[in-house]
């Protein structure tokens, strides 16, 4: 029997970890001479108090959903993909190429085409580390880290030397044509009689991200491929016994993972910036790790965690807007959330397990 009931494992542990991270964050805020209560207040109203705040929270959440799902799928195959950053970067390149060089007749088709391009580029950037892991046993954690750096160099080269419009100062591509612009949540919800902030960047990609959540869930728990991925992740000898090819599953899982990370680009590159800038990913690949961890690699958990981190990002932005708290505070809070929900979760789990064991003994 498992020591803890499932709800405790899935809800209680992350929740307590979060509270711990929040307490420590509050101490940090106090230490730099600011008021934590005021800060929380600002963050909550700023991120959740208006459709405008939600629009940003969901925009960021969409990014994290994709990278979180990417990390999760790899996790289920027992692979730790730290390369979401690089894969999303390359996904952006895919989106830019698709939007700039193909004359799309309508945004829906553009979205489709750009998604395919983003997924392909992201997957391609994951393919080499995957291949090296599958065929040569190179540690995927290290190779994906390396590919993040290599990706940054490639992107810089491409943007500065190849794709920058002549005479432009910005190391960025030209703006994508009007037809490729994606409808925002405002545009989508208006026909339904819901008035959503016109200026927030959350767009139709959020819906796609939700769809991706469902698809990933479906893939993992309803298809034989997902079954094979999960089997391989739990036990490589078992997978071999069952006739599941480690090489094939490693490749497929990483390609799906890379494609998901790459898909993030339709949100930030196509949906928000409408052009490709140099640092478009901004650490979302790394946040994806935390999101996957907190969400226990389950698409639904990932959704909740992504929204939490979206809230942190947007709330943090509001903090920076209305107070003199340095923006690095948000980095610290993120770090604490990752630390407590990811690395130190046993600190919470161990005493809880003991508690449940005691309760159970008493019952018995």
């Amino acid at each position, binding site marked *: 029997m498992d020591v803890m009931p499932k709800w405790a494992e899935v809800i209680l542990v992350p929740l307590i970890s979060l509270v711990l991270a929040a307490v420590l964050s509050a101490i940090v805020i106090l230490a730099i001479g600011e008021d934590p209560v005021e800060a929380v207040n600002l963050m909550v109203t700023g991120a959740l108090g208006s459709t405008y705040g939600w629009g940003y929270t969901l925009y960021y959440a969409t990014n994290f959903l994709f990278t979180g799902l990417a990390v999760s799928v790899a996790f289920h195959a027992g692979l730790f993909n730290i390369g979401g950053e690089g894969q999303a970067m390359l996904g952006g390149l895919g989106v830019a190429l698709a939007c700039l060089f193909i004359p799309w007749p309508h945004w829906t088709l553009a979205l489709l085409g750009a998604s395919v391009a983003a997924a392909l580029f992201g997957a391609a950037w994951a393919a080499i580390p995957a291949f090296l892991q599958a065929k040569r046993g190179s540690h995927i954690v290290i190779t994906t880290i390396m590919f993040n750096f290599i990706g940054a160099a490639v992107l810089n080269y491409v943007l500065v030397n190849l794709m920058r419009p002549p005479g432009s100062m910005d190391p960025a591509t030209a703006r994508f044509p009007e037809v490729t612009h994606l409808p925002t949540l405002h545009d989508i919800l208006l026909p339904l009689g819901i008035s959503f902030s016109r200026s927030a960047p959350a767009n139709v990609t959020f819906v796609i991200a939700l769809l991706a959540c469902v698809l990933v869930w479906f893939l993992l728990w309803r298809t034989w491929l997902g079954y094979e991925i999960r089997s391989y992740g739990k036990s490589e000898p078992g997978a071999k016994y069952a006739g599941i090819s480690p090489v094939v599953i490693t490749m497929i899982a990483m390609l799906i993972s890379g494609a998901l990370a790459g898909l993030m680009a339709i949100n930030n590159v196509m949906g928000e910036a409408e052009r490709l800038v140099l640092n*478009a990913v901004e650490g979302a690949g790394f946040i994806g790790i935390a999101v996957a961890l907190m969400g226990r690699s389950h698409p639904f958990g990932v959704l909740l965690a992504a929204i939490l981190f979206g809230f942190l990002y947007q709330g943090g932005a509001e903090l920076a807007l209305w107070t003199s708290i340095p923006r690095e505070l948000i980095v610290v809070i993120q770090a604490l959330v990752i630390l407590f929900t990811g690395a130190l979760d046993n600190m919470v789990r161990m005493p809880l397990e003991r508690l449940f064991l005691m309760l159970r003994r008493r019952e018995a």
Partner: protein
Amino acid sequence: EPAVIFDLGGKFDKSFNEAAHNGAQRWAEETGQTYREIELQSEAQREQALRRFAEAGANPIITMGFAMADPLSTVAPDYPDTKFVAIDVTWLDAPNVRQIGFAEHEGSYLVGMMAGMASESGTVGFIGGMDIPLIRHFACGYAQGVKAVDPEATVVANMTGTTPAAWNDPVKGSELTKAQISQGADVIYAAAGGTGVGVLQTAADEDILSIGVDSNQNHLHPGKVLTSMLKRVDVAVYDALKAGTDLETGVFTFGLAEEGVGYALDDNNAPLVSDEMKAAVDAAREKIIAGDLEVASYYATDSCPALDF
């Protein structure tokens, strides 16, 4: 209440954003008024900050850096009654935006001349931060200035890197400085953000001359910094704040004529700048202002007549 939006480097970047910060501070101290500010931390925040400030009634809203052009082009039309100031942007079609560009190549040209004259070896250096067109623009003006006083001179130009880390790698800055020294450079111009700190430090340690950028950095190593290429963002910001809602919109390019760019001369570097040097530079300045001399811009052709990238 006006507002200032600092770019990703943050308001204490010792150069571009810090100049704006200084201008705004000066205004606040002189008038006793306050302003709102934000240091951006992500790309998506650009538009967000603009809208938030505009909606909160901030006027004027001052933005820093060319990367704000794109969000401004979509936000400004939504708030026709708000005035915006866009530093380093000159190409928007928006009636309520005051667009201010600086002729960095002209300022760089002047300090390039000074470098060329101060150099004894005939080799001078340029160290840029991240390899982006803006920095090449600086380098290009500089190289032209050097060649103007010494056509035989060699300009060694290096970029620190290709990721944003290139703005914050003083160690690499130092190493580049030493490398350029070993190639004979005895005056080095740094346009590299935090990396430049390492350049100026090492130049001082190795007893050669350096040239600062954006703000006046002469004081960092008195007697070791030949001059600084000033980009008077502080003045632009100060003027904008002072004008308040009466701000005049349109496109303005601040070159030498408008004293938007220039070179720094103060007690710290006075002994280094000979009268002859000063005379030559000032003469060139007059010529440029008068239109008799044109400094080629990297942007015009994406290439530089005096330097290969």
